[in-house]
């Protein structure tokens, strides 16, 4: 299978030369195959979110390259690479415009590969959006003219997920996107996430603090620490892995204990 995302020796140092100097990414390299779904573990400050922000172009790296689907996007502007990358964050408010309707929100996200119609929401698009919303099984297809801000966190996150994947991105980034939801809603959104990734055969990276989740989803699990890759498991090794063993492995690898939060989720 061909490589979809290739990150080579990515380094980012924040506030270099000051007392606050922080090496957020330290020679980080990762090859992601097309259609691969990788879960990412690591304690707070390990560089997971920094990695995502780097891929998204929120900052330019000090060194290293990011190649997505054969194109070197290392120095592309953030909105330009957004045409190829879908992302979802912990806060459901981040991905949607509260004062616009569900339909308009989807239309905006769909701008990436919709036909260049004059009006933002054409009848054809509207029908497509309705179909998509129906797959969420949340009844949102009957509330397309409702303002996004009136939905609950879980509903908004599910809608954001549709928006992030509506243009069939080359890469989907999920940064603890269910962490702010209650357990039932969280499970539901995760379920939908898995379904969408599978149906569209998306290449995806998912950050999580939940060991069970990390092993249950996707086909490969990596762990980060101090801005580098410390663990990379897949195949039979991963199939035999348990959350408990994962913690032990991590402790051996990084020489430190995981955060309480990760331990508690065992």
């Amino acid at each position: 299978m061909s490589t979809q995302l290739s990150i080579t020796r990515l380094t980012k140092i924040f506030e270099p030369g000051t007392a606050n100097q922080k090496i957020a990414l330290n020679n980080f390299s990762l090859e992601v195959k097309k259609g691969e779904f990788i879960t990412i573990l690591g304690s707070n400050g390990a560089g997971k979110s920094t990695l995502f922000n780097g891929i998204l172009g929120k900052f330019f790296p000090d060194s290293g390259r990011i190649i997505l689907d054969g194109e070197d996007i290392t120095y592309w502007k953030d909105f330009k690479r957004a045409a190829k990358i879908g992302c979802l964050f912990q806060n459901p408010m981040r991905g949607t415009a509260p004062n616009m309707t569900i339909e308009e929100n989807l239309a905006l996200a769909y701008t990436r590969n919709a036909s260049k119609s004059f009006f933002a929401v054409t009848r054809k698009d509207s029908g497509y959006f309705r179909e998509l919303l129906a797959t969420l099984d949340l009844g949102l297809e009957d509330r397309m003219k409702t303002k996004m801000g009136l939905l609950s966190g879980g509903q908004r996150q599910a809608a954001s997920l549709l928006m992030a994947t509506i243009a069939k991105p080359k890469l989907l980034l999920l940064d603890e996107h269910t962490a702010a939801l209650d357990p039932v809603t969280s499970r539901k959104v995760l379920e939908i996430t898995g379904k969408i990734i599978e149906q569209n055969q998306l290449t995806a990276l998912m950050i999580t603090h939940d060991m069970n989740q990390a092993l249950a989803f996707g086909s490969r699990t990596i762990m980060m620490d101090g801005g580098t890759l410390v663990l990379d498991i897949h195949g039979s090794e991963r199939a035999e892995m348990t959350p408990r063993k994962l913690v032990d492995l991590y402790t051996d690898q990084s020489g430190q204990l995981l955060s309480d939060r990760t331990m508690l989720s065992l």
Partner: protein
Amino acid sequence: MHYFEMLLSALGQGAIYAPMALGVFIAFRILNTPDLTIDGSFVFGMTVCAMVTVAGHPVLAILAGTAAGMLAGLVTGILQTSLQINAILSGILTMTGLYTVNYMVLGGQANLYLQQMQINESGVEVPVASQTIYKMMAAVAGNGEVSSLILSGLIVVIVSVLLSLFFKTRPGIAIRATGDNEEMVRSSSINADRSRTLGIMLANSLVGLSGAMLCQQQRYADLGCGNGMLVVGLASVIIGQALFGRRGVTLGVVSAVIGSVLYRMILQGAYQIDMPSYTVKLLSALIVTVALVMPLTKEKMNTMRIRRAGEKEAYK
């Protein structure tokens, strides 16, 4: 009959200032950006319109005034986005700079009457009032306030319809979303900086249009005309909102226009109780302040009521 005339006058003035109120609505409500360019772009629209009118092109003059406002918006937009200057400061910088520009446009004077020198039958050079769109309308529909009201009203209706439609188009929702959640716009692969700049240009082009219309209607341009224009626009938007609430964008457009007319009616009422005309600015500031404080007052009164009821319940 007296009240009918008052109503006509309020409608006429309200219509002329309505595009300006729409501009304020776009900047403050849709883009969520305090844009102080407005005082300057209003006068810029006015002065450019005056020069083109005096040159003998009344219709072109209105368009030129609109374009002038748009140019002012472009400058503010670039200051805000590409140069990352704080939104309020960007507007103030443009507005301040425009004072000089406006002075220069009028040929180094603070005001200009719309008239040209012509030689009459007796061979004497006399000033003749320039042709304006309002005079052209009067030639068709007869003299008086009714005809200019019809013309201003027509312009406002066309602008409002086009604007409402525009906000349903792709660039239109991009501008709305930029004001609502800029990060989401960026992650939808839309250039949010460009959307923001376009929005500010659109807002100020409407303000320029308003200045141009006022210029031809009152037949002179004056650098002082823009003072406090932002507050007038905000008052209009807030009054409209008090009536219609903050709902969809089309209703927002309608409420800004109606707010502009209501604002003029309130002023008319103030004149009726013999308030001198220089009190207008203070009155506008008071209207805006009261309207802005209203939600907070309501909430405070509500919590007080709940507390009182709760204490009564506990210690009865």
